[in-house]
């Protein structure tokens, strides 16, 4: 193969912040090769044979958990799903008690989603497994940003100098933070489009430009990345007065998209709120929308991450 094997510093994937461009590029190259194998229907069931992968989800997720599950199984790992609703965490067991339980079970790879920022980092200090952050609070969701980058690369070639507009609830989005770090590291121009109530403090210091007018923010964009608006942010949450007002000013429809480049692509990490942040006609657009491809790339990218981390594990199964 033409690429060198990538490394992930520390033996975990906890955040994009701190990863350097060569690490990211090497990981994307590896993921690209898995995408090809997947399309050819080939599998590599010996790579993670004898390895245990635990999906530890403290928050509901279908898409991400399934994606990791498929990725692990395609590489031959024994995959176990633990979700909070049927685990002892609800009975008052602390996160660190969970960690020692997992250690006792000789877990090799631990995929963690948690509602609290920093929870996977805390677990990583205490478990012997390689930890993959599958989304922590409003901090990061590194594999989502990586699969987004992989998808963009397949359509646009190099990420360098691309104009990427990230739109919607930036404040509560771990996807946005990971994408900001990744795209900036790879030399893309990142724009954020949101009302001020949905932007985190001093986000401009992350090297992005901020737009409150969506048409201006989308002008000349190569990539339009929409984010999910949690319904609880509206009305009682007070950050946005109503769904109809949000859609009018920050929902992606054909008219607003016309300000972006004619060959621009539209992305969404899912699950979508149709008619709130994105119009169905755009979400299902045959050429502009790459939302389905993001899901496909998610499996390939996660296979690459599991591959890299498993090679770094000390205990060889």
């Amino acid at each position: 193969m033409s690429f060198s094997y990538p490394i992930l510093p520390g033996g975990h994937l906890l955040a994009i912040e701190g990863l350097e461009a060569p690490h990211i590029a090497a990981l994307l190259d590896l993921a690209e090769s898995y995408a090809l194998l997947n399309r050819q229907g080939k599998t590599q069931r010996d790579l993670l044979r004898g390895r245990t992968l635990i999906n530890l989800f403290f928050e509901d997720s279908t898409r991400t958990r399934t994606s990791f599950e498929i990725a692990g199984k395609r590489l031959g790992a024994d995959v176990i799903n633990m979700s909070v609703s049927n685990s002892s965490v609800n009975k008052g067991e602390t996160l660190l008690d969970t960690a020692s339980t997992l250690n006792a079970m000789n877990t090799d790879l631990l995929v963690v989603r948690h509602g609290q920022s920093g929870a996977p980092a805390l677990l990583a200090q205490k478990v012997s497994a390689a930890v993959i952050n599958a989304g922590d609070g409003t901090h990061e969701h590194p594999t989502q940003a990586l699969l987004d980058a992989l998808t963009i690369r397949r359509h646009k070639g190099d990420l360098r100098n691309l104009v990427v507009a990230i739109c919607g609830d930036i404040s509560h989005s771990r996807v946005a933070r990971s994408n900001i770090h990744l795209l900036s590291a790879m030399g893309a121009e990142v724009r954020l489009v949101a009302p001020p109530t949905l932007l985190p403090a001093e986000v401009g210091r992350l090297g992005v430009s901020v737009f409150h007018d969506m048409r201006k923010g989308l002008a000349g964009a190569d990539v339009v990345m929409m984010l999910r608006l949690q319904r609880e942010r509206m009305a009682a949450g007070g950050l946005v007065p109503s769904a109809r007002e949000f859609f009018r000013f920050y929902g992606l429809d054909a008219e607003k998209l016309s300000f972006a480049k004619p060959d621009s692509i539209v992305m969404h990490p899912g699950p979508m709120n149709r008619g709130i942040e994105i119009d169905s006609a755009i979400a299902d657009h045959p050429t502009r929308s790459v939302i389905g491809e993001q899901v496909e790339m998610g499996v390939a990218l996660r296979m690459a991450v599991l591959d890299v981390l498993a090679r770094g594990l000390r205990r060889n199964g």
Partner: protein
Amino acid sequence: MIPAPLLIHNARLIDPASGLDSLGALLIENGRIASLTGGAADGAERLDAGGQCLAPGLIDMRAALGEPGAEHRETIASAALAAAAGGITTICALPDTQPVLDDPALVEFIARRGEATGSLTILPYAAATRGLKGMELSEFGLLREAGAVAFTDGAHAIASARTMRLALSYARAFGTFIVQHPEEPSLAHGAATEGELATRLGLPGIPMAAEAMMVARDIALARLSGGHVHFSRVSTAAALELIRAAKAEGLAVTCDTAPPYFDLNENAITGYRSYAKLSPPLRPEEERRAVVAGLTDGTIDTIVSDHQPRDADDKRLPFAQAEAGGAGLATLLAVTLARVHAGDIALLPALAMLTCRPAALLGIAAGRLAVGAPADLMLFDLDRAWQVKDGQLPGKAQNSPFDGRALEGRVSATFKAGRKVFSA
């Protein structure tokens, strides 16, 4: 049993109240300072201080002591050990306990528990409002008679302007003051100071303006009521500027800060270090510098330990879920001395904020080297180096935000009413 007179000689006598700073001898008789000019009676014990500094025992205007209700984190006995090792001989204890200190009997009980340690005077704050709920005033008069030193809702800001106005007004009748946690509660649902770092870490932020706006409101209420408000753990430039102006205007406004706010900045929480999670949260570097300036120019009246005992179960959690608060008794002196060693403030004014200035605010006789004053003293080596280590701090609480910090200046002996209660 009355101990024999004790002459501490070859000591650098430091009394911030009078400006005394010279080598000499201090005589203790019957638990009080009998002489500052030597002249020991026959039969006095003699202690050669070896040129170390002898200063009044420290007066800490803010600490949580674990009792009643949180004895697994700290007890009055364990806090007294930590205090003695830190040169502290008087502590104002916070009323946010379980049950809340809003009843005269409880206030008396806590003060007596202090006496029982033999090494520590506890001056309990009483809750300003019943149950710390911010609604009805507690019985200021009866609580004062029972020994309450002043009134505060502790970690809770008194949110209602009307309640605060009444508290400030009513406190005047009993010659006391209100200690406010200066933070607008509706903006305080966060784990870190709002800004770039909190954004990067994905932590809910508390804007710094939450402090300044509460300070501004309460200064207006102090003006309106004629009452005395004391802001505790001031940590921002904007709040200090307001307090500076209020003092210039002649209002009864005072304030304190705690060592983390002049020694650490928000970067201490990087990596989700929950031991550096405090309330108010640590601030950016320019705010820390403003706090140092407030120490230097006298805007800040006193330095408090803000001792908040927490155990591992409180802290080994995802950052936003971990409890705020740091252990502070053992490091109060040395972290303050770090500003002296750095050249930001001279030794006497620094110690004044730990001795005579809190004594004056509280109206107590301790906190000075004066004939007839209680012989609450600490002997310390200004330059002795040591390192703060989790697990090796005196007392029960080990949750120091300064874990790993190298410091200079260490207490070698502490005296309470003339009796040695700690020696290194």
